[in-house]
């Protein structure tokens, strides 16, 4: 099997995650989908590092994880405060862009 399949898998997961972001209303699930997309990227990075035979890809993936962690912390905090204020975690409720 050609390890490039890992890339295909990553692409697939990424697409699924993106679709999820678009179709789900629950902010938490949306967030999960974002995580999924990040992971897909990580997989791709790892596969790349294997492709190139050096560790940079893995390091990027590592950084990605860290950033993801930070992002999750903040994001969830936002969700919590949002839930507190309007007793719902639906992103559609926040349709304030339309006046």
């Amino acid at each position, binding site marked *: 099997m050609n390890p490039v399949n890992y890339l295909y898998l990553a692409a697939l997961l990424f697409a699924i995650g993106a679709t999820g972001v678009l179709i789900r209303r629950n902010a938490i699930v949306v967030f999960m989908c974002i995580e999924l997309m990040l992971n897909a990227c990580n997989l791709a990075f790892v596969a790349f590092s294997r492709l190139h035979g050096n560790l940079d890809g893995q390091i990027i993936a590592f950084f990605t994880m860290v950033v993801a962690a930070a992002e999750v912390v903040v994001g969830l905090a936002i969700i919590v405060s949002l839930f507190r204020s309007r007793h719902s975690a639906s*992103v*559609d409720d926040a349709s304030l862009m339309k006046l």
Partner: protein
Amino acid sequence: MENLIALLVAAPLLGAAVLLCGGRRLDRVGHWLGTLLAAASFVVGAVLFADMLGRGAEERTLSQHLFSWIPVEGFQADVAFQLDQLSMTFVLLITGVGTLIHIYSIGYMEHDERRRRFFGYLNLFLAAMLILVLADNYLLLYVGWEGVGLASYLLIGFWQHKPSAATAAKKAFLVNRVGDMGLSIAIMLMFTTFGTFAFGPVLEATGETSEGKLTAIGLMLLLAACGKSAQVPLQSWLGDAMEGPTPVSALIHAATMVTAGVYLIVRSGAIFNGAPDAQLVVTVVGAVTLLFGAIVGCAKDDIKKALAGSTMSQIGYMILAAGLGPIGYVFAIMHLVTHGFFKAGLFLGAGSVMHGMNDEVDMRKYGGLRKYMPVTFVTFGLGYLAIIGFPGLSGFFSKDKIIEAAFAKGGAEGWILGSVALLGAAITAFYMTRVMIMTFFGEERWRHRATASPDQPSAEPAAETHGEHDEPHPHESPRSMTIPMIVLAFGSVFAGGFFSIGDRFMHWLEPVTRHDHGHSPLSAATVTGATMVVLIIGVALAYVQYGRRPVPVTAPRGSLLTRAARRDLLQDDFNHVVLVRGGEHLTRSLVYVDHTLVDGVVNGTAASVGGLSGRLRKMQNGYARSYAVSMFGGVAVLIAATLLMRAV
């Protein structure tokens, strides 16, 4: 001397200006002023005539250049007059008859509170007509041409409160406009052909251009003549024009204006000589019209309309003659002048009759008037004899000559035209006798008559003023009216003889119009004999028809031809159906098109833009997710683009 020419025009023009702008304070003297100026113009004309006689045949032409009218690059129109024998003939006719009719109108229009304006219009007409005949180029002639059209419009519609009069006036102007269109196109053709439209250069240069061009110009001129002289197919306005006051009918629609067409053709002789086809068409138009008018004249019960028909037919003679070329020009003008006399006389007579008969115009309600209005009877009678061409009177000479000339054209055409002219003479005799008998002889049908039949609206408003519909009391008209009639009667008796003896008139006009005696297949005597025969036949028929048996007061149904003739041979109906109705439909549909189509396209665009923006607005629904979709889609598109780029 030349400087007097302008005076000819200036006098009546001044009169028109003063009378029309003067306001009410001139009401009392207005008619005298108008008549005076007309007379002044006549005097000037007479002086110039005397002077002209004093000079040799060839240097009789005077010309006066007033000012340059429209000076534009390559286009020089001047206000300049030219007085030659032809113009002089007209000047005398116009101012002479004009003056007489001014005098006549003083009495005739006595009861009209707008008499001042009437005289103003009359003067305006004189001025325009003089410009027409004095102009030395076609553009200035066009000015007079339209000027007389205006004057005729104003005078036909003088009693504007009558819708019929207003309509008739409008009709006259419009039909004339169609003719004017021809004249203006002719002028344009001259300009593009000769680079000028002054009589002199154009008529000299006719040799240098193609016959086709000349034919085109000639036909356009003929169109103009048809409009102004009420020739088929543009004759329909003349009958209605009788709505105007009778003096107007006498002056404009019998003696002068309607003959302008003849003047135009004779004046443009050189062009027609170069275009035989055009000449042929002219003769045909003339022949057709002289029959047409005569037939119509036979059927009309309205005395003025009957006379109008006869005018049409007589002008048909003139046009026919003018179409014959140098053979006929002189006789055309001669007949024009004599016709000016007797037809004006007849109209004035008719006016006088109506004046005495509470403005009744229906001849069936006349009869036996000779003992009540003797002067009118005599003058009218002389006019009658003149027009039917009774030997020795004017009509005899002029018409006879035209018939001869028609035969002299030679060939089949000559025969056809000649016999048509003869036939016309017979019919003329018939309908004029009819008019004569119905009016002055027979039982007095105006007695014990109930009321004016509604289908014959009385032609003049006086009917409303003193229109008690009991028995009229026919009486002779006042002096101011009878004198002009007498003068004209003299003219209609002696003019013809005076002109023809020793071919005076021919020699007088020859320098301008040229003349050649064609080779007539028939001797003059034969023609005259034939004319006499048909004349007698016509008179006899009329006598049998109307003299022997009583004339019914209400018109009998009559034969198909009669009924058609009563309706101007259905020519009006044709116009109405085709032109009027069609035009109305056309305009209405165009208005609709303009509103829906031309305007609709624009409004439609606006509406669609508005709708589109509304639809676009809906896309901004404020949901983060839908924005995200578009973002994502955009990214996808970008990737696709890059891939394509790399693929390519």
